[in-house]
């Protein structure tokens, strides 16, 4: 009984955060803020669902696979977000106008600053 409640809570909140991550892609204003939503909420969502899977099946091989999935997600999701954000920043994708950019950032990275009038 308690196990079932625990599993339901995990699956439902996992689904909720997956929904938030997807909706974030649609609603948030620019690519970098969207990466916040997918990297954080998406990782937590899959972690919660895998926790429910591990608790529900409970046998060693399923638990081992669930743990492996979570570990690989924790390793790869931030790297993916990092690479997409890096590519966007280096190629000068227009950002949401209120974004304040540290003037040293382009110099320190050795990339060209996009011209101001590119920004919407």
């Amino acid at each position: 009984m308690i196990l079932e409640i625990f599993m339901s809570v995990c699956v439902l909140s996992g689904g909720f955060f997956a929904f938030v991550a997807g909706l974030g892609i649609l609603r948030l204003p620019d690519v970098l803020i969207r990466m916040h939503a997918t990297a954080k909420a998406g990782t937590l969502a899959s972690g919660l669902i895998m926790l429910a899977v591990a608790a529900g099946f409970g046998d060693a091989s399923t638990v081992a696979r669930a743990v492996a999935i979570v570990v690989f997600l924790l390793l790869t999701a931030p790297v993916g977000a990092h690479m997409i954000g890096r590519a966007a920043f280096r190629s000068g994708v227009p950002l949401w106008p209120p974004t304040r950019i540290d003037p040293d950032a382009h110099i320190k990275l050795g990339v060209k600053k996009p011209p101001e009038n590119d920004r919407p």
Partner: protein
Amino acid sequence: MSLFLLNLLLALAWAALTGQFTLPGLAIGFAVGFGALWLVQPLFENRGGGYFVRVYRWIRLLVLFHYELVVSSFQVARDVLTPRHRARPGIICIPLKARGEAEVLLVTNLISLTPGTLSLDVTEDCNTLVVHAMFADDPKAIARQIENGIERRVREALE
């Protein structure tokens, strides 16, 4: 790291003696073995050479990380689900004290999953980290927060 091997050996011995070669069996064996080693630590050179401190720091880092992941997800959820965009984003340069590729990798990965910040790029010499922050009213405060929070914990765990 030989104490770690000894601890693994104790975990295997526990699993063999209780006849439970399962994941929870091995985990319990590891915990019991850790307790036993901790009790006899005056017997080892150097009191175990910091093994116990390091395990404690790793556990502290993991707890901190999970807590921050949950907090940041709620923050993102609030920003996505409320009608107005609350974010005041900015791109910030943060000086990195972490040395070595493993430390930098762990710091950047953890920063991406903690509230309000997403690591964008690292300079060639690994001295500066460029992050995108959701609430960048005070760039210095964010830099200090990362330096004293995640980065210090990571350096303590890996040193």
